[in-house]
């Protein structure tokens, strides 16, 4: 497949790996922010191919994983109401709330539907004027423009039975929170390519300057990630710290300006709870006052639902790259994708699920990088 196969090409991957081995001397801890990148690393076993002195840790960039318990509980409460059709992206459905999940509410008669785009939720609202259609608008900067567009369109068309339950998170404040954390071990970041397709990477310059930490925008295929690692290693070995872009086929410095405009039109920046991490100042988006009629939290009076998450939870440490999923005593035993205890086990992009799905075959099958062979 064009624009895909060349980024999975074993020969190119091997060349980049060889270049990384030639370049690296120190020991570096690199964090990929996005769950999609974690998924690729695990699926292709990239961490096994890299030299041992490069450690990859997995960041908080799985939107399903960081959506706070509170939002899930609000969605569950809405989904159980007979007048509500709750519409969501597919992988939110299995996320456990405090007592149940959306799939179970659906099994008990709740009208819960999966869509691929928020504009489909708008269509459902047009087709069901007797129902209140609520879209569970979660995600990073990537999904924000489409979610904003749905709200904007609803207002233009005066669709009164549509609203969004918003839990939007932003990447740069999360990186800042990670870097200011006392335990931070990260020497360099692979920034999320999809987020930067929307936002560009200008906003990472201040992080680079404040923390002297290299940040490279990376894509999602194995060659993308290896190349991003190489770019980070080059900076680290030469003592530089710059914001660079590996994912040039999709990302430019300024990003997608019309997309950013619609986000600013509908949303404003506010403090945001991250599941497993806690509240990070100015790290989320909420619906502006002018669009308040489309804010499910306001119109359904859900503000009273607050849930405190236990401070002690290993998912917090996993999402900050302090622990590996396999360090959790529940991993693979009491906590599996079938019965997830914590959110990182739910979405295929969650770090715990990626380890569970791809890494249970144990040491006997793992291929040391020295025996790396690709011709078959």
């Amino acid at each position, binding site marked *: *497949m064009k624009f895909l196969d060349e980024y*999975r090409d*074993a020969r190119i991957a091997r060349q980049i790996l060889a270049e990384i081995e030639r370049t690296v001397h120190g020991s570096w801890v690199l964090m990929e922010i996005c769950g999609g990148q974690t998924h690729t690393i*695990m*699926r*292709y*076993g990239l961490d*096994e191919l890299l030299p041992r002195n490069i450690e990859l840790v997995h960041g908080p960039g799985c*939107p*399903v994983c960081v959506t706070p*318990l509170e939002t899930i509980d609000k969605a569950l409460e809405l989904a159980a109401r007979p007048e509500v059709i709750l519409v969501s*992206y*597919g*992988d*939110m*459905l*299995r996320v*456990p*709330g*405090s*007592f*149940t*999940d959306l*799939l*179970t509410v659906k*099994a*008990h008669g709740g009208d819960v539907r*999966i869509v*691929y785009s928020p504009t489909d939720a708008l269509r459902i609202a047009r087709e069901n004027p007797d129902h209140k259609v609520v879209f569970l608008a*979660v995600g*990073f900067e*990537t999904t924000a423009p489409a979610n904003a567009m749905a709200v904007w369109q609803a207002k233009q068309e005066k669709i009164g039975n549509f609203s969004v339950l918003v839990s939007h998170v932003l990447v740069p404040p999360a990186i800042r929170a990670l870097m200011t954390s006392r335990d931070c071990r990260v020497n360099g970041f692979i920034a999320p390519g999809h987020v930067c397709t929307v936002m560009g990477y200008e906003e990472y310059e201040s992080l680079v300057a404040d923390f002297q930490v290299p940040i490279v925008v990376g894509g999602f295929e194995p060659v993308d990630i290896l190349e991003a690692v190489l770019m980070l290693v080059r900076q680290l070995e030469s003592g530089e710290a710059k914001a660079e872009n590996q994912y040039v086929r999709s990302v430019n410095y300024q990003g997608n300006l019309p997309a950013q405009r619609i986000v600013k039109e509908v949303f404003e920046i506010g403090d945001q709870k991250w*599941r497993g991490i806690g509240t990070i100042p100015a790290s989320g988006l909420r619906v502006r006052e002018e669009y308040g009629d489309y804010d499910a939290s306001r119109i359904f009076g859900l503000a009273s639902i607050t849930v405190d998450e*236990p401070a*002690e*939870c*290993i*998912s917090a440490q996993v999402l900050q790259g302090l*622990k590996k999923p396999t360090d*959790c*005593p*529940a991993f693979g035993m009491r*906590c599996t*994708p*079938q*019965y997830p*205890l914590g959110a990182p086990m739910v*979405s*295929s992009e969650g770090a715990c699920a990626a380890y*569970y*799905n*791809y*890494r249970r*075959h144990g040491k006997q*099958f*793992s*291929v040391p990088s020295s025996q*790396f062979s*690709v011709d*078959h």
Partner: protein
Amino acid sequence: MDEKPNSLAQLICPALHPAKDTILLGHGSGGLLSAELMRSVFLPAFHNPVLARLDDQAIVYVNGVQLAITTDSFVVKPLFFPGGDIGSLAVHGTVNDLAMGGATPLFLSVAFIIEEGLSIEVLRRVVESLRAAAQKAGVEIVTGDTKVVEKGSGDELFINTTGIGLVPNGLELSANRARPGDKVLLSGSIAEHGIAILAQREGLEFECPVVSDSAALNGLVAAMLRVNGNDHNPIRCLRDPTRGGVSSTLNEIAEQSHVGIQLEESAIPIREEVRGACEMLGLDPLYVANEGKLIAIVAPEATESILEAMRRDPLGKDAQLIGTVVAAPSPIVTIRTSLGTTRCVDMLAGDQLPRIC
């Protein structure tokens, strides 16, 4: 990793288990939840040696004759999709379950559960499709039943078919017969049925429309069984990877035979448009349903001759050797990626859900 284990033991994850006392859609997806339902509800109730084999069909002996029996219900939505409809699917599904036991399918029963309000014209089209598919597969529909349920109690039309077939004496195919060294063959490109249905249901349009692979495989199986005759049958096991896809079927075989299965990712055939659709929708084709493909576990020495026989049949023309059965301490399916690394291929937990981004 560098923390003391004591401090970790005190940590707890915040969320509680979702309720386990309710049937979810995932219980019907052919993955882990289905297997759990089987283990916890059906097997304890009906326990007998025939059922305990957990193959796609029951093999029973009646007066010295070896019969295969199977039943399947079809609840596909939409009723009509590119490459087939609920009628042809109801024939192919049951015929294939018989064929996977090495049986020559003979007779089918058909039961219709119709929702009040269905147009008779739609029913006629489905029935005609059933007839044509049965004729093509060489089976006769010899009995049936009709029930009508109130509007809202069904989804237009459900069909159940039960089939009976004759198994040649001495022939035994079962998911518990895979042995280390055996080879894994796949009859053609994967994930077409699941993607065709999804595309139709969601109104997704692709440049090249994806067509369901729904087809009766009894002819292909007969050709494969002719390779060495019955005396020394090199085929250990045949399975059609329907719900849950190739990965779930191979996990079942690994579990029932207590072996490992190692796959070669680059050997698994998948059409360009299906791959594109899976990339776009965030689905792993290994978990997407097929309705006209089979997986054969065969003795290593017969690999080439069986592959040749498969490739001579139109339904097996893209057949490939995709992996090897290996000894393993516990049942597991692994795949070697294009980069030479290995990852495990698990059974599907619940339904495969599309991702956010």
